[in-house]
């Protein structure tokens, strides 16, 4: 198999199992230089395992990996200088300050003292951490830790950056700030491979997205193309009390609409044409269900995801609580 330099990352037939568990099965994809590529899937889908194989922290059972044209299965450590990795958990040194951590990481890539101190200061500034520069990393908040971990991942100016669930487990404001930083990386020309289980995040940030479920890519395309099939759908969200069985009752009464619930206070209505609100509200009110609001909503990637994977949004949402959606 030949390396195609048109791609920053090229993966074919990648597979990995842990005993009985097939963590990754037959995964193929290619990431173009400068692209922000999203790897989207629920917890346990095989995202981290894939990143570990791409970065040389795990050995694939089968398949080929080319990074910057280098065959990483034959030479697992040969592409290390091209890549930066931000793991799902911050793994910097708690006893060192933010500044020292960054300088140490730069030194691992052979960057001289003056240059690494200059870059560390620059990054601390860009990531809004200057005030905490001399504090021990161990005392940082989760959001600050994540920001410093990203800074540490790019201090050696990698061509390709791997980000594993960058916004999981941090507060909403920090997550928003991080997404802005990640958007900025792409503008700087860095190829970013990012995993996430937040659909809106992937939709907002990524150029192309691969849905991964159970170790398999079920769908891969640009956000625009992914949204195409649902673009003409009409969606309505009705705020009202719901109960099990309500969607079925409604479906019987309105056969050309489809219904689902979101939590126990929202009803979702889907149709291929415009939805008439009046009859629906009347139907509900006749059953003593008070409707407080009804509004049209824009179809999102969530709808695509549900359609393509058959996985309910709720099961995706309840993964890892405390998530930084905004």
């Amino acid at each position, binding site marked *: 198999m030949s390396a195609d330099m048109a791609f920053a990352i090229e993966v074919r037939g990648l597979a990995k199992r842990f005993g009985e568990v097939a963590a990754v099965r037959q995964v193929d994809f290619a990431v173009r230089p400068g692209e922000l590529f999203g790897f989207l899937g629920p917890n346990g889908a095989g995202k981290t395992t894939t990143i570990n194989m791409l970065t040389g*922290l795990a050995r694939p059972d089968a398949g080929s990996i080319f990074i910057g044209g280098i065959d990483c299965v034959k030479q697992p450590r040969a592409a290390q200088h091209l890549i930066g990795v931000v793991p799902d958990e911050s793994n910097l040194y708690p006893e060192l300050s933010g500044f020292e951590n960054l300088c140490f990481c730069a*030194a691992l*890539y*052979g960057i001289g003292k003056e240059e690494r101190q200059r870059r560390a200061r620059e990054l601390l500034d860009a990531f809004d951490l200057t005030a905490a520069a001399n504090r021990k990393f161990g005392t940082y908040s989760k959001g600050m830790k994540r920001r410093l971990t990203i800074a540490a991942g790019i201090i050696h100016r990698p061509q390709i950056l791997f980000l594993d669930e960058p916004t999981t487990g941090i507060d909403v404001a920090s997550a928003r700030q991080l997404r802005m930083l990640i958007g900025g990386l792409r503008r700087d020309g860095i190829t970013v491979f990012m995993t996430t289980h937040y659909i809106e995040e992937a939709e907002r940030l990524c150029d192309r997205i691969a849905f991964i479920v159970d170790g398999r890519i079920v769908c891969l395309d640009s956000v625009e193309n992914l949204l195409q099939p649902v673009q003409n759908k009409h969606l309505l969200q009705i705020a009202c009390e719901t109960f099990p069985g309500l969607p079925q009752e409604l479906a019987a009464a309105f056969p050309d609409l489809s219904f689902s619930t979101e939590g126990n206070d929202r009803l979702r209505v889907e149709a291929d044409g415009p939805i008439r609100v009046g009859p629906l509200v009347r139907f509900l009110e006749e059953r003593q269900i008070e409707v407080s609001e009804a509004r049209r909503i824009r179809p999102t990637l969530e709808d695509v995801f549900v359609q393509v994977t058959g996985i309910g949004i709720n099961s995706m949402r309840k993964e890892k609580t405390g998530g930084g959606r905004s």
Partner: protein
Amino acid sequence: MKWAIAIWAILCKDMRTYYLKPPNVSWGIIFPLAWTGMFFIKSAGEVGSIASLLPGVVAVSILFGTTSMLAVTVTFEKKSRSFERLLLAPLPFELLMLAKTGGAILFGVANAFVPVIMAAFLIDLGGIVWSIFIPAVVLVALASTFLGLFIAVAVSEVFEAQTFSNFFRFPMMFLCGLFFPVEQLPSLLKPLAYALPLTYGADALHGAVRGAHNLPFAVDLAVLVLFCAGLFALSLWNIRRNWIL
């Protein structure tokens, strides 16, 4: 040059965060002091017995100083995942592990000289063959560091590393001819003694300090070199096999 920067950074960081921390520095000094004091007092200042105890005390100081460090610098960093950062660095794996163990080796050598300095106040050290003593100290430090590395890599918890290293350390104190000659061991245990690296180190040290050794110096030092290479290679192989899943 790039690799040198990385190696130096790893060494300095480990020194700062682990070796030069007050508890470790004092451990490194007090421990050999305690051993030395205990044995020297027992020998009641007899000049002959201090010289015969010195090699054993030096070896024990190195053994304990080095092996206890790897549990932190390697096992702990593996567990806290910061070791992954090192594995991702564009640095040959062998050099990375040498940088990671370098601090422990230096620490062990430094520990070795605590009893030597103490002994210098009590007896005349003019008779020591330094050209053998110093290489022997360095090789014992290397071998015990790599033994510590082997253990640190084989386990996943820090306490396991500590327990497991005692499993090696205490028998070695008695089997390796530190304080009484290997010749006096029951004949069943003798082959075991010669399977342990410290036996050769202790033999060379006894020879350097007071001329009493069983094997030629060249053999002692060569066997130590082989042990170092073997343990290092084995540890690297273990990391590649078990840590890069």
